[in-house]
């Protein structure tokens, strides 16, 4: 105990030593060390780069719907699919969910004044910013960005005829990824330490809102998965620049000459392209959950708030997040069933893939049971939550199909796979982000979003994703392969497939334009929207109980909040209002049921006096 006290004293010292209210625009808004400003910086940068990714998907759809009509070259098509994939998965979803939501919510939901290491936090954002600049710079170098596909598989990504491989495109891409990994590591260390060590009095881990559980687990996954991508990026950089042969076997070009990195280097020989696939997917599959787990958490919290019900099975939700986190590290080779692996490995990875569906299914059931007989308030965040459950469920079910080797092999690299991962990972994660943005916007800006624009955005997007992605399942069954700019005479598709492609393109363009309604809504409402009170959704969690809205530097005024209960006391029998905030002291309320004391009040009831 004496040692613990010492530690505590020292931490408070740390806390106040570096923390004074910053003055001046540069320190306050540009090189800010305040987690809320950094969160907004992360969010806006991610949305900006996401709009570029959206534009690139428009390029792809125009070419697929109306081949050749818009003057899109094959090379540019390949560059568009590559940059679209990488931007959306890494620079939008990962950055927005961890850097944006993580930064904003962790200290506020846990009752801390800031992150554990504010300076590191600022560095994390600026490294992310530099990685985005480097990535976008590849559009302006000779040869343009790499067109190797977002998985960057060698030898394709290194061979000179691939777009961007002759110039700097591929080098900038992997350089940008390496910088992003540094940023994600600095951010991840901060998030993990803050969750473990900086919680308010009474905030045990088992009382944390599920958003924090999701972000926390995803941060751990990021710290353990990004290293493999980092190593792969370093090796590929050397293969490109130094002429090493980590991933490059001896290979001849169309003229029959052995390929080398440059004329003064010996030809490539003896490398293993499969090694890159393993390194990439050892990162790549946990990456799916780095995106999904924070989304799960956000959905759980928003859902419970707007359904006015306790989240169903809180403990199982936590264990499911942790189980998914662990299992996500042993499923990666299900992305490689067609790589010629030993059938026993295929069996192993198919089994683990199906096993991970169990905790995931627990979560989906629990969300549905949370809605069951709830007092549902169909606010815009709630609409996004319900939309999320439907897209995640449908996308997840096709995941069960594709997890089986025998189903995956014929469907591999077809539009069925595209439809699957867009619904389950792309659309669902984006829906969760929208749910979160609509939910926390009043806290971040102190103003409400415009309701008509919000509803327009939701309904067009919700209908739109099904109109776009459901037909893709069918196209996949027809055998339409991905990553083809046009299909010509060689593919014997029925005419309906061509019409369907044009139809999807028109729907996708409409849906893309509607996203600008959201952008306009955010920009307009941030200044002109209806003023929001501190807790407009009547939520229990701590971030809604700050003395100021939006929260000011230091978050909590003179004294930190003390937590007396879990995050989901909605519709409490006998209470004055239909919810009890986490910092409501027991004496101020009617007695709770004993069950709650057992499940959530153990160990820390000492604080409740």
């Amino acid at each position, binding site marked *: 105990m004496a040692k613990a006290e010492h530690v505590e004293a020292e931490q408070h010292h740390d806390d106040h030593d570096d923390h004074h209210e910053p003055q001046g625009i540069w320190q306050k808004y540009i090189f800010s060390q305040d987690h809320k400003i950094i969160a907004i910086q992360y969010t806006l940068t991610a949305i900006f780069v996401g709009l570029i990714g959206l534009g690139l998907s428009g390029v792809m759809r125009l070419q697929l719907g109306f081949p050749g009509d818009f003057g899109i070259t094959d090379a540019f098509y390949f560059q568009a699919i590559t940059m679209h994939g990488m931007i959306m998965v890494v620079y939008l979803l990962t950055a927005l969910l961890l850097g944006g939501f993580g930064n904003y919510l962790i200290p506020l939901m846990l009752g801390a004044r800031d992150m554990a290491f504010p300076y590191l936090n600022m560095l994390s954002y600026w490294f992310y910013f530099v990685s985005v600049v480097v990535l976008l710079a590849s559009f302006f170098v000779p040869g343009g960005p790499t067109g190797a596909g977002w998985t960057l598989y060698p030898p394709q990504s290194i061979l000179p005829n691939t777009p961007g491989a002759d110039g700097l495109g591929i080098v900038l891409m992997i350089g940008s990824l390496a910088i992003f990994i540094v940023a994600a590591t600095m951010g991840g260390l901060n998030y993990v330490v803050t969750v473990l060590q900086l919680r308010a009095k009474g905030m045990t881990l088992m009382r944390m809102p599920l958003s924090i559980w999701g972000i926390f687990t995803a941060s751990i996954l990021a710290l353990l998965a990004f290293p493999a991508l980092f190593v792969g990026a370093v090796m590929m950089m050397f293969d490109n620049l130094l002429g090493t042969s980590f991933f490059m076997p001896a290979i001849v070009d169309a003229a029959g000459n052995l390929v080398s990195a440059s004329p003064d280097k010996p030809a490539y020989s003896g490398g293993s392209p499969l090694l890159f696939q393993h390194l990439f997917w050892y990162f790549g599959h946990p990456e799916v959950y780095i995106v999904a787990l924070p989304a799960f958490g956000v959905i759980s919290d928003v859902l419970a708030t707007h359904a006015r019900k306790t989240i169903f099975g809180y403990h199982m939700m936590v264990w499911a997040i942790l189980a998914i986190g662990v299992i996500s590290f042993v499923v990666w080779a299900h992305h490689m069933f067609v790589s010629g692996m030993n059938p026993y490995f295929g069996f192993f990875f198919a089994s683990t893939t199906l096993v991970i569906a169990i905790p995931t299914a627990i979560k989906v059931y629990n969300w549905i049971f949370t809605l069951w007989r709830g007092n549902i308030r169909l606010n815009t965040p709630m609409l996004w939550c319900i939309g999320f459950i439907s897209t995640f469920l449908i996308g997840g079910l096709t995941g069960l199909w594709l997890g089986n080797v025998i189903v995956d092999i014929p469907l591999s690299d077809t539009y069925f796979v595209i439809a699957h991962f867009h619904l389950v990972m792309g659309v669902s994660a984006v829906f969760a982000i929208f749910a979160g943005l609509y939910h926390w916007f009043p806290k971040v800006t102190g103003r409400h979003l415009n309701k008509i624009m919000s509803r327009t955005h939701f309904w067009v997007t919700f209908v739109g994703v099904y109109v776009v992605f459901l037909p893709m399942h069918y196209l996949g069954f027809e055998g339409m392969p991905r990553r083809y700019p046009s299909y010509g005479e060689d593919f014997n598709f029925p005419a309906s497939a061509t019409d369907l492609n044009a139809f999807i393109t028109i729907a996708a363009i409409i849906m893309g334009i509607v996203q600008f309604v959201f952008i306009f809504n955010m920009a307009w409402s941030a200044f002109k929207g209806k003023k929001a009170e501190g807790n407009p959704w009547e939520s229990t969690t701590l971030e809604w109980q700050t003395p100021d809205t939006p929260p000011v530097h230091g978050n909590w005024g003179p004294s930190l909040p003390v937590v007396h209960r879990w995050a989901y006391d909605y519709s409490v029998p006998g209470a004055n209002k239909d919810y009890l905030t986490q910092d409501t002291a027991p004496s101020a309320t009617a007695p709770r049921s004993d069950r709650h004391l057992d499940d959530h009040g153990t160990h820390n009831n000492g*604080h409740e006096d």
Partner: protein
Amino acid sequence: MAQQAESAELKAPKGLRGIVADWSSDETAFKVSWSKAMMWIFLLSDTFVFGSFLIGYMSVRMSTSEPWPNTAEVFALSLGGDPIPLLLIAIMTFILISSSGTMAIAVNYAYQGNKKMVFILMMLTCLFGLSFVGMQMFEWSKLLLDEGLRPWGFIPGSHFEGDAAQFGSIFFMVTGFHGLHVSIGVIYLAIVAFRARQGRYEKKGNYQIVEIAGLYWHFVDLVWVFIFAFFYLW
């Protein structure tokens, strides 16, 4: 604090629930400072970086289509005309492990608040680290200039059996990445040592940063043991 301990004694649940309650304990999960917790988590992440490097190395070595050179021959140091296998590496390893020893003693003095000895022992550790990096540079230049090893393979006409292109690339990459860690560690330790001498930690009454720097240093040494085993002994 006392109140918390009391209530924990009274109400701590038993069995598996007790384990969960311990881990999800109030305010802090680990009773250490934030910085030390961060260093441990960072080292876990860095372990995965080196783990990926080493597993990549094993995979490349097993899958390459060209024969691997005889490492005992490549890494031999000629002393008085006779090549002695692993001589240089043995000395390097000995020095690096000794530096862990001096670092550990420095941590001990740090907790006694003896800033003079902290400074001396940490600078000694830096010196060991620098000599390690120096010997690595000697080894690299010997391989590059005398043996004709290049990151993209042996130059034509090398006198070793086996000329897998991956040998040079993986060797320079992994030892280089480790050497970078040692160099960063030397700078880090030197900064901490000078700050200790200035009395900065004495004023704070807290020398824990010395231990945190030590954690990093021991980690870098530990990684070397694996690199040594997998590159030089295999």
